[in-house]
């Protein structure tokens, strides 16, 4: 057993301090206000403090930290995207994740498993090659593999998928990982707090005060706060925030659902995704299968569960793994995904001075947590978005310069 745990057994009082202070009443003003205490918002706060020494920052969270999509996603981290700008961006995130446990002094259970995107059709195989080629070009380890190699990595997978959709190959992405989602939020919160950032839970933003095109403050359920810089990092709540400042975006909200099985001894070491079958699955360190599917088919601002989702998902799971027929689903839940038409985020400045947007994260937000925090912190600190996120600027839609991720409308996650 590691020595680090000794203190707990040997001390009478619990020796661990609070992760973050119990802030209740915001101050009159802050240098920056971050709306949304999820992974993204907390990461932005952390990098503002760490990289730019801006610590007079309030993070406002209407629920509890990490309680939105941070705590509802299926925790897959990968960078095997289709466009060089996308691959570069997510690759930077993967690299940050690899060192993040040490940096945040918290075990995030970042576990590199290898990620297989299964292809069941010729056109899916073409898309896999496209992604593999772009990934390789940018220096990310991805390649197209044949069914026998998939079988070696996951012998339990029925390559014929019970005859419903035989697997023709896969895109193998070596850096594909999973992490403990809550811990990412808690780790950023802990370190941001340590540097002076104040985190307010149960604090809702009710309005944003804009004068002459510039942000001057925010109204909250705990009173008015003066500030010139506001970051919205609220995922499924983005349209409600952008409406407060009259900023138009393409973002629409669709629920994204997931479920877990009961725990079992480890057998699935890799992360598997099938676009055709709308399935992604990995096994958590608790032994549960964490499973997700495609987005709900229509707009809704709710985290209700649907039976259709779990019926569809499990019918495909049992095609892939026939022996799971009697393994049980314990729980299903949903998040609200903020979707853009080109499957890429919206990041950076907006037509309102001092109002910054970190949104459009659809189904790919968790994997971008560190890099989005870092680049948004830079945007806020310098009032200039770094080159890396220029392709994701809001104005690309007006300019008809959508990102190429739309090129192959592949299933993400």
């Amino acid at each position, binding site marked *: 057993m*590691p020595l*680090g*745990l*000794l203190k*707990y*057994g040997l001390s009478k009082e*619990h020796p*661990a*301090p*609070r992760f*973050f202070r*119990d802030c209740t009443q915001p101050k009159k003003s802050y240098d920056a206000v971050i709306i949304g205490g999820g992974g993204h918002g907390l990461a932005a706060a952390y990098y503002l403090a760490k990289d730019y020494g801006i610590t007079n920052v309030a993070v406002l969270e209407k*629920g*509890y930290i*990490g*309680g939105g999509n941070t705590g509802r996603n299926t925790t897959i981290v990968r960078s095997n995207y289709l466009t060089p700008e996308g691959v570069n961006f997510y690759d930077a995130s993967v690299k940050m994740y690899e060192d993040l*446990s*040490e940096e945040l002094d918290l*075990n995030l*259970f970042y*576990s590199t498993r290898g990620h297989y995107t299964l292809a069941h059709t010729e056109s899916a195989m*073409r898309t896999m*090659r496209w992604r593999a*080629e*772009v990934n390789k*070009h940018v220096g990310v380890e991805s390649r197209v593999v044949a069914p026998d190699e998939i079988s070696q990595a996951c012998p*339990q997978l029925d390559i014929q998928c019970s005859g419903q*959709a035989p697997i023709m190959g896969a895109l193998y992405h070596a850096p594909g990982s999973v992490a403990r989602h*809550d811990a990412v939020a*808690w780790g950023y919160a802990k370190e941001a707090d340590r540097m002076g950032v104040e985190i307010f839970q*149960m604090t809702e933003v009710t309005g944003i005060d804009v004068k002459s095109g510039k942000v001057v403050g925010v109204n909250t359920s705990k009173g008015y706060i003066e500030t010139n810089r506001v970051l919205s990092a609220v995922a499924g709540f983005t349209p409600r925030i952008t409406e407060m400042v009259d900023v138009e975006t393409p973002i629409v909200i669709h629920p994204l659902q997931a479920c877990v*099985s*009961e*725990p079992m*001894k480890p057998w699935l070491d890799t992360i598997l995704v099938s676009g055709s079958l709308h399935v992604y699955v990995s096994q958590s360190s*608790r*032994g549960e299968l964490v499973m997700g599917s495609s987005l709900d088919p229509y707009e809704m601002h709710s985290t*209700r*569960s*649907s*039976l259709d989702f*779990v*019926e569809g998902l*499990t019918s*495909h*799971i*049992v095609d892939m793994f026939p*022996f*799971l*027929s*009697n*393994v*049980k*689903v*314990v*729980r*299903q839940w949903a998040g609200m995904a903020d979707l853009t038409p080109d499957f890429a985020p919206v990041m950076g400045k907006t037509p309102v001075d001092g109002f910054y947007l970190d949104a459009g994260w659809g189904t790919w937000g968790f994997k971008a947590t560190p890099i989005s925090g870092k680049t948004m912190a830079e945007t806020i600190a310098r009032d200039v978005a770094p080159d890396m996120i220029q392709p994701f600027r809001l104005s690309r839609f007006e300019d008809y310069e959508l990102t*190429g991720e*739309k*090129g192959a409308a592949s299933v993400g996650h």
Partner: protein
Amino acid sequence: MTSRIAKKRGEWINRDKPLTFEYEGQQVQGYEGDTISSALWANGIRVLGRSFKYHRARGLLSFANHDVNALMTDGEDTNIRADVWPVSNGMQLAAVNTEGGVLKDKNKYIDHLSPFLPVGFYYKTFYKPKRLFPFWEDKIRKAAGLGKVNFNYPRIIKPKRYAHCDVLIIGAGAAGLSAAINAAAEGFNVILVDENRQAGGSLSYDHAGEQAAADTLNTLLEAVEAEKNIRLITDAYAGGYYGDHLVPIVEKSGITKVRAQTVIVAAGVFEQPPVFRYNDLPGVMLGSATQRLVHRYAVKPFDKGVVVTANDHGYRTALDLASVGTEVVAVIDMRADGASQELTQKVKDKGIAVHKGSCIYEAVPTKGKLGVKEVVVCPYNETTAEADTSRSVRLVCDGVAMSAGWAPAGALLYQAGTKMRYDNDLEQFVPGELPEGVFAAGKVNGVFDLKARLQDGRRAAGEAMNYLGKAVSVDTVKPVSMARPSHPYPIVNHPKGKNFVDFDEDIQVKDFINAAKEGFDNIELMKRFTTVGMGPSQGKHSNMNAIRILARIRQLPVEKIGTTTARPFFHPTPIGHLGGRGFHPHRYTAMHQWHVDNGGEMMDAGIWLRPAFYAPQGSGLTASEAVQQETLAVRNAVGMIDGSTLGKIEVFGPDAAAFLERFYTGKFVDQKVGGSRIAMLLDEAGVMVDDGVAVRMADEQFYVSTNSSNAATVYREMQRNVQLWGMQVTLVNLTGAMAAMTVAGPESRSVVATLTDIDVSAEAMPDGAFRSGQVAGVDARVMRVSFVADLAFEIHVPYKAGLHVWKSLIEAGQSAGIRPFGTDAQRLLRLEMGHHLVSHDTDGLTNPFEAHSDSLVKMDKPFFIGKRSLQILAKKPLGKKLTTFVLEPGFNGELPQECNLVIDAGNNITGRVTSISFSRHLNRHIGFAFVPPEQSSAGSGFQIRTDSGAMVAATACEAPFFHLLESKGE
């Protein structure tokens, strides 16, 4: 040693059917009707499992599927819930998650390490240095998990059914039965569901040593049986509540999805354990668990027991225990005031001592912590939750029954959107505001008195019937004055801990305190940090105590803490049940069987099955040989392909031409009858969506084709725009109604001519011409096309005649050497012709300017979908252009694949290959690629990088590729 007692009235076992099974290598006797746990307990077996984290020995706790102490494997299946799973003859069972047997589990040492494994310990170590984490992670993963999955378990998918009813009632206890009887009597169609094997709820076990409850139950069951409007489903649970009253009822045989008009939740309550040190030892169980053992399975729970209670239910339990000969040493009542004089006296009359204001400070284990030896009883301070250890008494016993209170089985109510409120008199959450059409009755509604529960069931039925539009009077259920059913804080502090709150996850009181100290002092954060309620029983026995503990830590009232969200499923539900027998519709063309009979290699093409190529049995053809032969047949003689999967839409009406002009990029108003035009569809952003052909059959009749994969979408969009634009147009989707086949190649004209009355001569029928007539005696629509060859005829006939016409053409073409060809050859043929395929050679962002399709876009029309966006795009420089290309003659290196990249001298990605094939006809590799516009003109060279990284030179060239044949020296 057996603790099976004499036959009990209403027992659930069948004594005429004894059976034998094996548990951990030991032979065990039971009866049909026993659960695994009841049979084991009857045989004196107390250790039924090991806990998830600390590997502590565990016995019965709730004996109601509200905990997972007893999870077993039979070698085939795993995580079997022994408390509720029926035992069968010859079963060979073992506890899961043990090493070396449940009694000697090698991992039990972890229990001793628990002080060093504080709450969330895994977040605090194992990550420095980073390289060691995989080592620790492997250890953690192996330690986690419960059962081992059997990879040979068969694929079992159960049928799923739909059902419909007026009133769905969840829970067939007193309230549910009463509601059902009352609703059915008014003519409503009722489905009544209970997860137990028999209806009755607590009436079947909570007897307090008397007969009244059993009598009431008999009366109710007789009434239900007599009522034809009630469908009673037992051994089935309501998995969850979904929108508009959809509730999946899960049985062992499969799921029934009930769409109800109204739902009454009468699901009762879960008994909650008081919390004290070693409350998890085998032999320490809930009061209701002992009652179930006694009355349902005729098993004496223990010989000499104590009852610890914080409500009156403990007294009832004591009376039930005493009635079957258990020596009840004492009732230890955590309440300072104890129970009513009357109830206390009843217990005392049985010779049972009553200790008011006392608690069990700790249970003392037998050797190996495999059971309970005695309990330490101390005076209890209800306000501070502290035991006065200076005045302790030890009571020897082999079992403890615990009754401290209840939590509502309100999962479905939460999922339906019920706002629950905390009732301070009951110390329980009860429904506050119910959603439309959802009602609650009985204990889940905070009604505990038996008569009141029956009345509450009637009341709920009345409200449901009013909701359904039937005016029946609804009684008000008056509160009955009774002792508080639940204790506000049935928790005893102990410096050494091991006072368990969540038995699934081995979470003790101090874990909550420590979590709060670390800042996780919000119920959701606490849940996530401690994992309380996240185990397989989903907090049924633990969430309420967790809320009480947090409320006390934060010095807030319970209602301020709130509850966590109860997500489906009520009980974990098998993947094979949920997935069930799905439907996988396929479409077949009229010629399907012919293709199969003639060696067609059938492939999924969207929802259709199509031949990729033909390799008749015995031909010995490989795929690529077959494709090349088919292609050459078309180039040199004649071939035929089944094109029935094309989308086919008839557009009728005075506005038909005007409609198509708005819908597609081309012009149709001036189109001549008998001619065809390309129909290219864009989306509003100017992206290419589809291309087909529009034939004008009459002034007010067009026949439009679409790509196979877009047929449904294009038809749907046409319908929408007809409605939106308010045009006089009638649309008919003929995709399935018409079979289609293309006869292609130099000999195609002569083959078609033999079977038709249409003049198909070059003069009478130029490329693009359309004629109606007869082919093989069948009304047909015939078009000159040039997609796969310069000379080709597309023939459309009614589906039912499709095979006849196909066979006739094959026969007519025999002398010309006709060959059927599949989709693979078609793709190569169109490539040789230089035709791109939308969504194969284009992607989700490609506009017509990039795809060399400018000429198909009539920008001088007033409007078409996507036009305004094209006007904007036209002002921007083109980023890429689709071009046809060739590789060097005789190229024999590593062949580029579709989606290999075009790379420039500066090692930048500038494009990609979208199609590539070797054409035997041309003896060259030909393809399509996106390249920078300046490299798209014929003769420009560019480099393609292969999978292995080799660079291959390619040259843009003009389409169609046939000019390559004339200029061999290129």
